[in-house]
């Protein structure tokens, strides 16, 4: 025992890395919550260095407008990730939404939008019921409900790509497509949607409850709140936002197809995570997702500016993602990293 211990050197003692000896949070820890937007600005500047036109207001405006459907979907996804679950059905719901919008446009006009939103709410709520009441993990329940939405989309479309009549589209949704003072209405609509989501999250009992569920579900139960209802609501809202994303995309493309929104899911999840809302929930939120979506947009278009060769784009994306997540997530909020 003595020998053993003799070989062991005393180690220099340090306080816990997260806080100084005086107990306050260290500088980096306090800076953490600013990291998402710092990452965004750095990325913008980095790409701007290769071509200053990238930073022109017009280009940034375009970049923001292009990402609108993804942003709307990611905002919905945020609410679900905020309660510590995940929604893998968003893309399929958006797919279904493009089909439903297109086929109901002749009969319902603007009403087709309402129909689609209702359908999104319904499918989201089904995910919620299956998760909260049947206790099927959301990873599975939403994947499964997504499959159902996909079937509905395929069936309703007759497995065809459909296009909207130009006049009907203009009549019903022309207002989304225009611009005012150079700002596309799509962007304004999207920001309004983000604002609504922000309001729900920060100013309404539902949002407060979502946060509490993500932060400490047992506390919410022990506070006498009907957790299941709120969970279902979060999923329903996510489904609704996904449907709106599909609706806006469908109007932009003036058509629908059961595969039209393919490729939305992973970027949307990535946008939420990169923005700094971890899968454990309770932290982050829609403003983070706004930043996260922009980061995704910048990284995507940076490939063009940095001349990343075709076969290297996936690697580039993956590596940038790791760096972005490593800098944006707030580890002090994660007790155990699993």
């Amino acid at each position, binding site marked *: 025992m003595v020998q053993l211990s003799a070989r062991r050197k005393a180690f220099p003692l340090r306080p816990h890395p997260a806080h100084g000896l005086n107990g306050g949070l260290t500088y980096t820890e306090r800076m953490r919550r600013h990291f998402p937007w710092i990452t965004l600005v750095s990325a913008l500047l980095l790409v701007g260095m290769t*071509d200053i036109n990238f930073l022109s207001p017009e280009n940034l405006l375009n970049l923001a407008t*292009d990402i609108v459907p993804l942003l709307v979907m990611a905002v919905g996804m945020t609410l679900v990730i905020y309660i510590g679950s995940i929604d893998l059905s968003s893309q399929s719901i958006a797919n279904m939404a493009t089909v439903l919008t297109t086929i109901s446009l002749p009969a319902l006009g603007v009403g087709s939008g309402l129909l689609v939103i209702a359908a999104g709410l319904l499918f989201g709520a089904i995910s919620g019921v299956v998760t909260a009441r049947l206790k099927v993990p959301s990873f599975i329940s939403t994947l499964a409900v997504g499959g159902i939405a996909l079937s509905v989309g*395929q069936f309703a479309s007759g*497995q065809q790509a459909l*296009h909207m009549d130009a006049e009907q589209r203009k009549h019903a949704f022309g207002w989304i497509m225009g611009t005012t003072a150079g700002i596309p209405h799509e962007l304004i609509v999207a920001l309004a949607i983000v604002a609504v989501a922000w309001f729900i999250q920060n100013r309404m009992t539902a949002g407060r409850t979502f946060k509490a569920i993500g932060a400490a579900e047992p506390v919410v139960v022990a506070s006498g709140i009907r957790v299941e209802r709120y969970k279902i609501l979060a999923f329903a809202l996510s489904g609704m936002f996904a449907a709106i994303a599909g609706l806006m995309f469908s109007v932009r493309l003036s058509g629908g197809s059961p*595969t039209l929104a*393919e*490729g*939305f899911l992973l970027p949307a999840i990535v946008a939420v995570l990169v923005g700094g809302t971890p899968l454990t929930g309770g932290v982050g939120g829609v403003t983070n997702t706004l930043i996260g979506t922009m980061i995704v947009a910048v990284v995507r278009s940076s490939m063009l500016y940095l001349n990343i060769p075709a076969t290297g784009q996936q690697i580039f994306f993956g590596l940038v993602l790791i760096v972005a997540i490593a800098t944006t997530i707030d580890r002090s909020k994660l007790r155990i990293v699993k």
Partner: protein
Amino acid sequence: ATLGSGVARAAAQNPKIAWSYRDRTNPYWNSIVSGGEAFVRSLGKSTSDLINLINEGSSEKSLSDIKSLLSRYGSEVALAADPNDMPNCRPVVEAVSRAGAYVSTIWNKTDDLHPWDFGDNYVSHMTWSDVGPSEQTARLLFDAMGGKGGVVHLGGIASNNPAIERLEGFKNALKAYPNIEFLAVQAADWDTQKANQVMSGFLTRYGDAIKGVHCASDTMAYGVIEALRAEGIEDMPIVSYDGNPQAVELVTKGKILATVFTNPHWAGGITAALAYYAATGFFKPSAEPKEHREFYGPTTLVTTKDAQVFKTKYIDTNPTYDWKDFWSLGKGQIKYRS
């Protein structure tokens, strides 16, 4: 809505050439890219001057990437694109026109969208009439089956245009063969693994009743062949589509009866060339007749008889094409069904 109607403007001196396509994991798109690269080399540029926009099957990414390209290079762009989903073609074309750049598209376009509605900027659209060739392969198949017995069809992603047409051709051929029993059709999404699983399911369902397989693409045929090989079935008549190198190889060996070569190498080159030469002012698209704006690409039936010759000519080497000879390989103006 006629945009830029014939107003003469300074032609681009040295436009950036870009190809926007689905992915790099599929031999078909690799051939397209090889054609694009061959064209770029013919201009004395390096292959890295061809900008690759890979959309991973996401219309959203397709559109965003193209818009990023346009905002970086403005009107100095000659774009060749497969818009991935039919509805996506319109916003792509509109964005290009707005920027004053030039685009030629292949495959996916809604019927109500025409190059001549966009003046010079929407240079051309090429697609392949798959109905006829698909009918031809089906006839070959039915003949090989001796005009009787059960047949199954494995289709692509059901809402994709080629999938629809290839199924239609197959069904047309059936009419002339009353003793052929059409057992089942199922989408296998252009995917080898999925086709493999679907085929083994068919084997269980229909067993020995299956006497022939009609595949909507080569990639799916590979999966079918392997599913059959697993059962020790080596001589089932199979036909496929696309004329990929591996499939042509299999045709020479008699493993596949016939495939249809759509000459993606040429298509990749000529589509880029059309956009490029329109951009440089080498020709004025709006001065061309309609059959030069919307036309069918070449299809060559490759059967066991001519496979070897075909292989040496088109697969082992690529013929040198004159990239200014735009239309000689085309198969006439696109006809719409309704």
